[in-house]
């Protein structure tokens, strides 16, 4: 017995000591768990005498959603993982306006003992054209709780100090979803965007003047929606509406008072409406060729693989490409839970904005994405942020501006809006 008991005791002791010697609580000071990251920054050609300052590199961990900001020349160590890495800096040029440098790389996998991240910053220069101030894609709810369609709209804004003519400006929606990434081939994103709907503001070039600080309202259906849905609002005063001659008899499109946009192309044979949950990019462009020429020469045929549990299926589709240099402004929209990628080049928009945080988010109704106010000039003109980064430039989940202005419903119960804001956050005095 004595011998066996000793064996048992020995075994017990061994187990206790083995367990006790195992790794102990994790700590952030445990540098062995971190990966050193080397940042390679290739600056673009800058004017002579230009000085780059305020450089920052931000690592956003996709798992945890946590962000950490570093100086690029400081020792950077992060936990292994997948990160979105962004770079920002200011460029001071003697005798010229201060500009911003920005770079953005997505889904960088950092897993080895050391990692290298290459950043190619570009200089952000104002486009001197209209900007998208607001996108209301979510729509409203009827008192019954059912969703209502047709009251979506987009507001353009003259953020400059001079008159801009909107004639010929084309509203477009991306073909690709920000929530579903495929390896499209050929990959043209560095040169062009893939679009599925194009509607152009009619005019000869000097017909649609937008004064500094003024909006241009583009509506889906320019009628008083309160007739059909007491929780909606009046869009009969919109400047333009997009109109579709539907081939589906049951899909009746109501041609209200506002003038129609010229339909260049739309993917659907029924009526076009913005993606109700905001899974696409919406933008405006100045296309320097006529409609016929564009439709004949800018078709984009692409292929990709649909990988499912049942197997991999090669797919091929067609859309239209819009060269990046024609694009005046574009806003990527998505939701946090579904977001997969940017459907634009980073130089056009390196962020994204949202209403709601998940697919079918019930909080999105009555809300829009609105561009952030930078300041109000002495003449009362609001100046909005425009850094080609929708994450930074937009307030998501805002009460739509038309709801605020018309004091209509902010929820399914018909609770009226009481305040008016510049950007969904800062109240108008």
């Amino acid at each position, binding site marked *: *017995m004595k011998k*066996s*008991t000793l064996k*048992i*005791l020995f*075994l*017990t002791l061994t*187990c*206790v000591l083995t*367990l*006790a010697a*195992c*790794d*102990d*609580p*994790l*700590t*952030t000071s*445990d540098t062995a*768990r971190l990966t050193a990251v080397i940042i390679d920054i290739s600056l673009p050609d800058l004017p002579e005498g230009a000085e780059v300052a305020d450089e920052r590199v931000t690592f956003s961990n*996709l*798992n*945890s*959603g*946590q962000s950490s900001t570093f100086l690029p020349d400081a020792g950077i160590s992060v*936990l*292994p*993982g*997948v990160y979105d890495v962004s770079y920002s800096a200011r460029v001071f040029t003697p005798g010229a306006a201060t500009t911003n440098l920005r770079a953005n790389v*997505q*889904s960088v*996998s950092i*897993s080895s003992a050391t990692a290298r991240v290459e950043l190619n910053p570009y200089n952000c220069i104002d486009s001197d054209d209209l900007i998208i101030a607001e996108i209301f894609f979510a729509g409203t709810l009827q008192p019954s*709780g*059912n*969703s209502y369609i047709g009251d979506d709209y987009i507001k353009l804004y003259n953020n400059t100090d001079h008159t801009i003519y909107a004639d010929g400006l084309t509203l477009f929606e991306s073909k690709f979803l920000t929530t*579903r*990434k*495929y*390896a499209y081939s050929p990959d043209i994103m560095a040169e062009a965007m893939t679009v599925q709907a194009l509607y152009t503001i009619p005019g000869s070039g000097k017909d649609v003047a937008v004064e500094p600080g003024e909006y241009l309202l583009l509506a889906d259906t320019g009628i008083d929606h309160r007739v059909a849905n007491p929780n909606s609002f009046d869009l009969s005063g919109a400047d333009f509406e997009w109109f579709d001659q539907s081939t589906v008899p049951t899909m009746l499109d109501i041609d209200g008072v506002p003038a129609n946009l010229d339909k260049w192309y739309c993917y659907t044979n029924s009526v076009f409406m913005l993606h109700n949950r905001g899974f696409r990019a919406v933008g405006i462009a100045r296309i320097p060729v006529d409609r016929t020429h564009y439709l004949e020469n800018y078709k984009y045929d692409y292929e990709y693989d*649909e*990988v*499912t*549990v049942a197997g991999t299926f090669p797919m091929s589709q067609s859309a239209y490409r819009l060269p990046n240099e024609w694009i005046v402004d574009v806003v990527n929209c998505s*939701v*946090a*839970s*579904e977001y*997969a*990628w940017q459907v634009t080049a980073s130089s056009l928009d390196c962020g994204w904005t949202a209403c*709601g*945080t*998940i*697919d*079918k*988010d*019930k909080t*999105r*109704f009555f809300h829009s994405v609105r561009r952030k106010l930078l300041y109000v000039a002495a003449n009362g003109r609001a100046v909005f942020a425009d850094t080609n980064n929708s994450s930074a430039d937009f307030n998501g989940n805002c009460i739509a501006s038309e709801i605020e202005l018309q004091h209509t419903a902010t929820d*399914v119960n018909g609770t009226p809006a009481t305040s008016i804001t510049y950007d969904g956050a800062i109240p108008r005095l």
Partner: protein
Amino acid sequence: MKLQITAILFIACTVAGVSAADFTSVAEAIAEEQTGLWQLADRAFENPAITAWKSNLSLTKAGADFNGTATDNAVDPRSGSGGREWGLFASTYTKYRSSTLTGRGEYSSGITRDVRWNETADPGLLYPYLLADSAGGDLRTENYRFSGGYADQRGRWVWGGRLGYRATLQHRAVDPRPRNVVGQLDISAAGGFNFVKDYYAVAGLSLMKYKQTNEVEFLNETGVDKIFHLTGLGNHYSRFDGVGLSTYYSGFSAGIDLYIYPASGQGFFASTQFKRFNFTNVLTDLNKLPLTGVNHRQFTAQTGWMFERGALNGGVAGDVDIYRRHGHENYFGDATSGIYPLSGSNEMYADNRVNAGLTARMGLKTAPLKRIFAQVDINWQHQSIVYLLPYSFMDLNSVEPSLKVAGVSNIGKSWIFNGTCSASFIIPYDCTAEFSNDADTELGGLLDAERGTFELNSRSGSKIRLEIGVARALGKYALRLSGEWQLTTVKGVSNRNDYAVSLALNF
């Protein structure tokens, strides 16, 4: 459900037919179950071969029970604010010559009120990787449990085996509508030999296979609530918030154990058990994305000495329970065509605990049905829970002394009473915590739950438990009614009442 209840009643009636004894024998078996000295070496009886020495008397039960919980302050909403459950059961411990047959069949159905930040069944087993949302609501649960065991002795050798299966269904009838289905299969086998006097050395092997599938549905056509994949101490896997409403947990456990036990129930005893449990949490609707996993290693040991000298009996025991529970999170590259390539894995969560206890017991047995004992326990526990980034931790230390008095007595030839009274005091010390995920306003309720858990474990408190049972002879059977009540008070935090009532035919 009807089928299962019928099966339980059929088993009960069949066993009743073959094992019916006289009331005296049944009463002695009840007394042994309630106050037997074997309780001091309770860990040893997890082994299917040693089960044979728990008692020399057969006891079979069939009945119904009801239990409930109520608290005046549900500081951890993951456990709900209270609930109730009823059930039917049949169990047997039957001796026949050198063999021992054990079995249990059970059905229970209940509701847990206002559960939030947890949509997963068995949260204690699967923490920290729970499916959760802020809305929550009442959860209805049904359990089906069946187990059977057999032990036998041939010469110097003993052996035994046990097989058990549990199925749990959990659901809610309003949004969010989780439907959790649990299947758990337990198998254990053991064998040993008599190496000196009546001492046996027994070795055992236990295996467990666990699977839980979760489907969360929303029927509200205008929208859904956000589903989170929690990662511990108020953190979550933010990349897949709102997706992965269809998930499963797949786990496997293996354990080995060694025992020295005296067949007479008197003398030195020792047991060691080592168990490893691993599970992974997979998002089914993202092409079976393996999101997280846990590696749980547990070591338990118990040793002591028991004696019976005339009317006196008693003993001392010491035990230790150590576990290390480490969780890892996988990370993935960009999805292409809905497939996320696995890039790597980080160990992000650790829960390490040490628990040690000493027990001393002294009893008096003046007749087979007149027994009383008093037991003093003292337990020390240290637990350290850490989440790596954002760095969060919870350090808990406590000492818990307790006193228990229990007794059994017959009144006349037709009645037998038993009662237990115990009180313990929880004395925490050096408890600290930090929760760093404050910036995530969506998770305010979850952080409150974590803080609530810390409050519950870092404040002094007490437990008072009363149990009373009465059995009446019905021919050779005994109809037994028993009730339990426990009040757990955590100073300045909450008062929780647990109660249970059971009515069973014993034979």
